[in-house]
C-alpha cells in the first residue's frame, strides 16, 4: 500500500505565526530597552567646545596687569599692557605645559617652572620655551565695553 503524504498545513502555519510574533515581540523589547541602555551608558563626552568667552567690563583690568581665565578646559591669560592694549594667549607654556603668568616688572610673560620668558606679544624670548604662546583674538564689545576672547581659528585653542 503506498504511503499517503498529507502535508500538515495548519501546524506549519501556526509555527510561522509564533515565530513572527516572537520576533516582533523581541524587536519591541529591544526598542524599549535600547534607549534605557543608552541613558545608562552615554557616549564618552567630547570636551565641550568653547570658541569664545566673555571676561566682563574692560575697566576691570588695570594697566600693566595680567589675569588667568578659563577658556573651555584650558587656561588663558589676558594681559592689559601699559599701552592700554589687550592681548590674550593660551596660558599653557610651550615647554612642558606649566601655566604661565604675567610679570608686571618686565612687562612680559613668565613661566616659573623653568624660568621661561615670553614678551608681551607672546614670543618666546629666553629660557626653554620652544614656541610662542598661542594667541587668542580679543574683541571689545561695542557699547558694553566688555572683553570677548575668541580663539583665532574659531575652534577651542
Amino acid at each position: 500500500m503506498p504511503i499517503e503524504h498529507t502535508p500538515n498545513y495548519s501546524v506549519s502555519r501556526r509555527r510561522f505565526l509564533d515565530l513572527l510574533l516572537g520576533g516582533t515581540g523581541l524587536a519591541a523589547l529591544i526598542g524599549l530597552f535600547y534607549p534605557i541602555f543608552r541613558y545608562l551608558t552615554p557616549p564618552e563626552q567630547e570636551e565641550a567646545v568653547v570658541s569664545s568667552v566673555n571676561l566682563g567690563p574692560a575697566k576691570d583690568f588695570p594697566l600693566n596687569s595680567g589675569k588667568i581665565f578659563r577658556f573651555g578646559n584650558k587656561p588663558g591669560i589676558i594681559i592689559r599692557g601699559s599701552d592700554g592694549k589687550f592681548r590674550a594667549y593660551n596660558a599653557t607654556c610651550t615647554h612642558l605645559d606649566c601655566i604661565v603668568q604675567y610679570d608686571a616688572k618686565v612687562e612680559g610673560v613668565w613661566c616659573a617652572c623653568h624660568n621661561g620668558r615670553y614678551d608681551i606679544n607672546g614670543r618666546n624670548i629666553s629660557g626653554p620655551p620652544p614656541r610662542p604662546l598661542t594667541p587668542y583674538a580679543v574683541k571689545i564689545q561695542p557699547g558694553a565695553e566688555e572683553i570677548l576672547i575668541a580663539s583665532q581659528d574659531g575652534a577651542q585653542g
Partner: protein
Amino acid sequence: MFWIREAQVNNIYFKTTIISLLIIVSQAIAVDNCIECHNQIHEQIISDCKEDAHSRARVFCAGCHGGNSALADEEAMNPKYGFVGAPKPKDIPRFCARCHSDAGYMRNFNPALPVDQLEKYWTSRHGELFKKGDYKVAVCNSCHKAHGVFPSGDTRSSAHPKKVPSTCAKCHSDPALMQTYGIPTHQYTQYIDSSNVHGYALFVKNDITAPVCNDCHGNHGAAPPGVSQVGQVCSHCHMLNAKLFRASPHKDGFDALGTMECAFCHQASPDVNAPLARIHTIVKPMAKLAGTVQPAVCVQCHSQGDAGWQMAGKVSAGSDSLAGKFAAAEALIKRAEKRGLEVSDARWQLNGDIHRAMLELRTAIHSFDLEAWQQHFDYADSLVNAVNAQGLHATQELSSRYKYFLIMTLIIALLIVLLILKIHQVENDRKAALTNKQGGIRR
C-alpha cells in the same frame, strides 16, 4: 628741455646697471686658484667648506691661510703674500682671534656676534693649561672644527646643542688623555643614560633648550662650576627651587660637605661617600627622593630622631597620601567623564589649580622649612579633597540611575511574568468552560 634731463638720468642708470652687472659676472667667474690646485689633494676640506659660515661670508682659503689666490702656481704660497699655511695647535687661539676678536672687522659680517671668545678662553681650564704650554688641550678647532664651521644653531655644527655632548666627549671620554689630568671619563655615558632627564629631553624629545655640557660649564670659558656654584648654575632654569635652597640651612651644610648642592640629591643613586659619582645623570624628581627609607636621599646625612629626619618622614607621608588622593580623584573624574557626567569644573581644577599647587608643594621642599611646606600641603590637600567630593557627587548620581534601572527592570519582568500567568489562566478557564459545556450537551 625736460626730455633731455630725463635722457641723461636714464643714461646714468644704464651705465650703473652695466657696471654692477660686470662686477657680479667678474666675481662669479673669478677663479680661486687655491681650490683649483688643491681640489684633488684636499677634496674633503673643500667640500666641507663649501657652505660653511666662512664661505658664506666670502672668507675663502686665503682668508685664513694667507697667500695670493689669484696666482695659479706655488708663488701663491709665498710668505710675502702673508701665507701661513696650517697653523700649529699652539698658534690656533690667536690665529682665529685675528678676526674674531676684532670688533671692527666682525661688524662687517654680524654686528651682534660676540668678540670676547679669546678673552674668555684664557679664563677657562683649557686656556689656563694652554698658557702653561700644554697644547693638548682643546683650542678653537677642537670644538668648532677647522673646516666646515657652522653657527651653533645649524645642525651641521659640531657646537649645535645636540652635538655638544659628543664633541666634548671626543677628549673627555678618552681615558688615556684624561688620565694626564686626573679627570674621570664617565660624563658622556652618564649624560646619555636614558634616566638623565636632560639627555632624555635633548635626544628623545628633541628639546634643544635642554642643558648640555656648555650650559653648566661654560663654552669659551669652560671650567667646572665650584661646589658652591652649582645652585647658581641650576637656577638659570630651576629658579624657584634654587632660590629656596640657597636661603635654606642646607646651603652652607652642603658646601661644607662638598656635595655639589642640587646635583647631589638629584643625581642617580646619591651616595654621600661618593658625592660626585653620578652627577651627570640627573634623574626625574620623584616623591620618594624625600623620606626616611632608601632610595630617599635624606638618609644619606640625617639619622633617626634629628629634625631633618622628622621633616623627611612628614614630607614623605604627606606626599604619599596626597599622591594617592590625587590619583583617586583623577580616576573618579575620568570615570565620570566617560559616563557623560558634567564634571568640567573638577577637570579644570585638576589641570589648573591642583597641578600648580602640587608643583608649588614640590618646590617648597627646597626651603627645608616644615611649616612653609605644610602650608602648601594643606592648600593642595584641600583642593584635591574638593575635587574628590565633586567626583563622588557625580558618580553617586550615576549609581542612583543604576539602582532605579534595576528596580524598574525587576518590576517590568515581574509584570511580564504575571501577564503570562494571567493569559494561561484565562486560557485554561476558557478551555474548562468549553469542556463543561460539551459534557452537558452530550448528556
